[in-house]
């Protein structure tokens, strides 16, 4: 193609190059990666130019000059046969690098295609390949290499080919896992629907996924191969005519009392080379991971410092009667390049006893962050940038706190404030029965006996509408349905008679018929126990069903607050109006929902897209 205007394929290719170039760039800028590359470069150069670099013949034995020290005729001295150590080191680099390359090449040549086929097609080949892999992994490589040596005789190259076979399961598993995770990705389905052949799907969509892990694995494998190759030579199982680092270590070790320095040079050569490969692999992994997650978790030790007791601070008088009061709350996260990103900004609301407050917003509105701040379950690196939270007349986050003090919240959590999560299945520990997960907090917090806790748990399970409490009590999480699991989590949330429940999208993961039943359970419990509930949701139907008051959040800010009827029937804020206009119930079918006429002058399309973009970034 000689076109001057870049066509689609070209521009795409360039973008691809940009991605790779930036990975390379990061690798070189990483001091660890750069060091490793320089060391390996030097070693490769030495190996390639061995005849030019080496001061002499590696196998020329000067019997009159054995175990000479450095200086004099040879730079690094001579070994027990009077051979020049420097020359042997230089030629040893050749063998070392070639054997690493050979082992890696054999391992890739077997493992990669096998992994691709097994991962993509599965079936008989997969079964057979897995079985072979299990056998290969059950064999200690050293023992296999000994057997091969016994059968075939001393040959570094045969040993490395066999070692490559033994290493191939690593590549096989890596490739297979990567392919399996991609095979069912929707974009591969989309390619199939487009009629792309299997070969092209593998080449275009799947090979790109395994490329990076393969390179990392290869760096590691080269290190392992050098280690085992040197060890074989060290044991005297290699070809005695070939100068290798392993043989040199063995020679040094035999003369350890007379000339320990002869041991140091080859050992250092081996260690430095392997370390360079390991460092290269690590640096590669780091530079690829940087690409994926910009948000580096910066950890704060949960040590004594963080648990330091904080004095209680008196709340503003006249507000003690609110069960929960959030005042001007701000939450931010440190950014990798310095600075801070605010996800909740100046949010204020309150909840009273026997009241259900809905926090409504779209993804990234900060509604979940607000809920976790109330619970004190924000990630470690979260910063409280401002404001305060008070519960029953006591600050849990005082006005000057910059993070959540666990000693203020830990005594309340589970006992007076509890939590209903969104995903029912992932919020139960799969290794423990439902019963043990229910009774444990009760024994701890209520101080009752195990037997009493058990009776209570059975009653709770019955009260959240579980038909056979005993069976569910004895079941493991994987044995119950999502709807049942959510009821179990609700039972857990009310088990210690809390005053306030924070429910984070409690029905979002459920089918609509189950959602209705779960909401019935929540409503009944709320009115019976006089609970205060904060329901975080994006669904106005849920709001209408259960909430007394509503706050609407957008982009970390609170945009509107009021009684449920006022907000749903006559919203004042333009964003609330857009949200309600997006509801489908009671709208004429087949007509546009968000035309400019209907919404203007609320928000323009550009503003909405912008808002959406900024929201997406925060999740």
């Amino acid at each position: 193609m000689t076109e001057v205007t870049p066509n689609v394929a070209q521009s795409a290719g360039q973008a691809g190059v940009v991605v790779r170039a930036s990975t390379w760039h990061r690798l070189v800028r990483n001091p660890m990666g750069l060091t490793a590359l320089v060391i390996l470069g030097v070693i490769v150069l030495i190996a390639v130019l061995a005849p030019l670099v080496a001061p002499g013949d590696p196998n020329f034995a000067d019997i009159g000059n054995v175990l000479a020290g450095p200086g004099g005729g040879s730079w690094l001295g001579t070994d027990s046969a009077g051979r020049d150590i420097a020359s042997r080191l230089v030629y040893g680099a050749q063998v070392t690098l070639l054997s690493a390359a050979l082992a890696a090449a054999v391992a890739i040549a077997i493992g990669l295609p096998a992994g691709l086929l097994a991962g993509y097609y599965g079936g008989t080949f997969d079964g057979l390949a897995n079985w072979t892999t299990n056998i290969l992994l059950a064999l200690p490589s050293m023992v296999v290499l000994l057997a091969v040596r016994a059968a075939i005789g001393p040959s570094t190259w045969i040993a490395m080919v066999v070692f490559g076979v033994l290493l191939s399961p690593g590549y096989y598993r890596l490739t297979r896992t990567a392919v399996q995770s991609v095979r069912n990705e929707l974009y591969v389905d989309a390619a199939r629907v487009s009629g792309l052949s299997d070969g092209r799907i593998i080449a275009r969509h799947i090979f790109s996924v395994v490329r990076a892990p393969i390179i990392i694995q290869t760096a590691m494998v080269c290190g392992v191969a050098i280690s085992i190759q040197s060890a074989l030579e060290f044991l005297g199982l290699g070809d005695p005519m070939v100068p290798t680092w392993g043989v040199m270590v063995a020679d040094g070790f035999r003369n350890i009392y007379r000339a320990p320095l002869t041991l140091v040079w080859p050992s250092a050569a081996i260690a430095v080379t392997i370390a360079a490969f390991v460092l290269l692999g690590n640096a590669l992994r780091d530079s690829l991971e940087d690409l994926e997650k910009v948000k580096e978790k910066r950890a704060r030790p949960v040590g004594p410092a963080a648990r330091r007791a904080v004095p209680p601070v008196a709340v503003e008088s006249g507000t003690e009667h609110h069960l929960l009061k959030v005042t001007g709350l701000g939450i931010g996260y440190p950014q990798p390049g310095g600075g801070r990103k605010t996800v909740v900004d100046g949010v204020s609301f309150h909840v009273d006893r026997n009241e259900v407050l809905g926090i409504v917003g779209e993804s990234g509105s900060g509604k979940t962050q607000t809920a976790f701040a109330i619970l004190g379950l924000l990630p470690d690196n979260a910063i409280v940038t401002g404001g305060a939270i008070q519960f029953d007349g006591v600050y849990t986050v005082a006005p000057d706190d910059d993070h959540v003090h666990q000693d203020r919240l830990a005594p309340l959590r589970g006992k007076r404030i509890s939590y209903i999560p969104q995903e029912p299945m992932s919020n139960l520990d799969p290794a423990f029965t439902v019963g043990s997960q229910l009774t444990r907090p009760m024994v701890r917090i209520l101080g009752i006996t195990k037997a009493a806790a058990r009776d209570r748990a059975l009653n709770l399970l019955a009260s959240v509408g579980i038909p056979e409490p005993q069976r569910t009590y004895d079941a493991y999480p994987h044995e119950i349905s999502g709807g049942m699991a959510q009821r179990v989590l609700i039972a857990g949330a009310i088990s210690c008679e809390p005053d306030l429940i924070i429910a984070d999208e409690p029905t979002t993961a459920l089918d609509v018929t189950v959602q209705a039943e779960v909401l019935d359970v929540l409503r009944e419990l709320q009115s019976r126990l006089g609970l205060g509930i904060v329901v975080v949701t994006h669904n106005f139907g849920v709001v209408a069903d259960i909430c007394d008051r509503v706050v609407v959040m957008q982009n970390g800010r609170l945009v509107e607050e009021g009684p449920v009827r006022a907000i749903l029937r006559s919203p004042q804020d333009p964003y609330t109006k857009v949200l309600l206009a997006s509801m489908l119930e009671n709208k004429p079918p087949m007509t546009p929902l968000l035309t400019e006429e209907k919404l203007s002058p609320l928000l323009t399309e550009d503003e909405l897209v912008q808002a959406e973009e900024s929201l997406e970034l925060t999740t």
Partner: protein
Amino acid sequence: MLFMILRRIGSGVVVLVTVACLTFVLLYASSSNIARNILGDQATPEALAAKEAELGLDQPLLTRLADWWAHALRGDFGRSWFTNEQVFSAIASRLPVTLVMVFASIILIALVAAVLGMLAAVRRGWVDRLVQIGAVLGSALPGFIIGVFLVWVFAIQLRLFPPISKITPNAGLNLWVLSLTLPVIALVINGVASAAQQIRSAFIRQLELDYVRTLRSRGITEREILFRHVLRSAAPAGLTVLSLQFISLLGGVVIIESIFAIAGMGRLAVEATTKSDLPLVMGVVVYTVVIVIVVNLLVDILNGWLNPKVRVS
């Protein structure tokens, strides 16, 4: 559960048979030089032929394989070609010291790596960085170089330990343990480095799961969350890591025994290999595979017991 165990035992037997047959074929396929190897270059053609007949090398390969199995199933793995010692008793006399070292090493690896991995995962910060750096350094040094330098520094320079360990338990338990200390340290360092790293990531994966947050919300203490819930859920990953470490220890011990001149199975394997003493090599391979299979079976049973989905069914 029982079905799972039986299936694993079955597949273990299949693996053993496959490996044994393949090894036998590999070792004995080219048997032309064996007799000369044993008798030396001066042997007459008649003596060579007699030796071949004595060893059964004039039989077809498959006949010899069947013959080997017939004896092996009765516990008879033949005799060494050079020392005429029973393969079974040669291995049996050397296996204990090897197993002591390997099991002592795996227990040390498990303890140290679990503590380091957990600390790094839970504390993060500088502890984490230290563990990570240590892991890179530890995995960069091959076991035999570590062993050689341990001898040089601690046995030769500082004279804290005996440099070679031809010491049996009869010489006094203290001395015996002392003599095995350096070899075990040399064996353990690589394993700790890589296992700590993997245990660390297994813990971090678990700590980021939703249910941990829910447990916190229920008022469960961090200590209980860590030791009761997370430890248990991370255990299968840790066990898998350790079972792979165990296999690599069986290889590593070959080298370490040679460095420290310990009369264990590894050193026996090297000697048999150098002399092409095929019945011994064959015996070593079979014993190693059996040990691996038994350990893997134990790991599978433990993992199955930890996983309610397997245990309940």
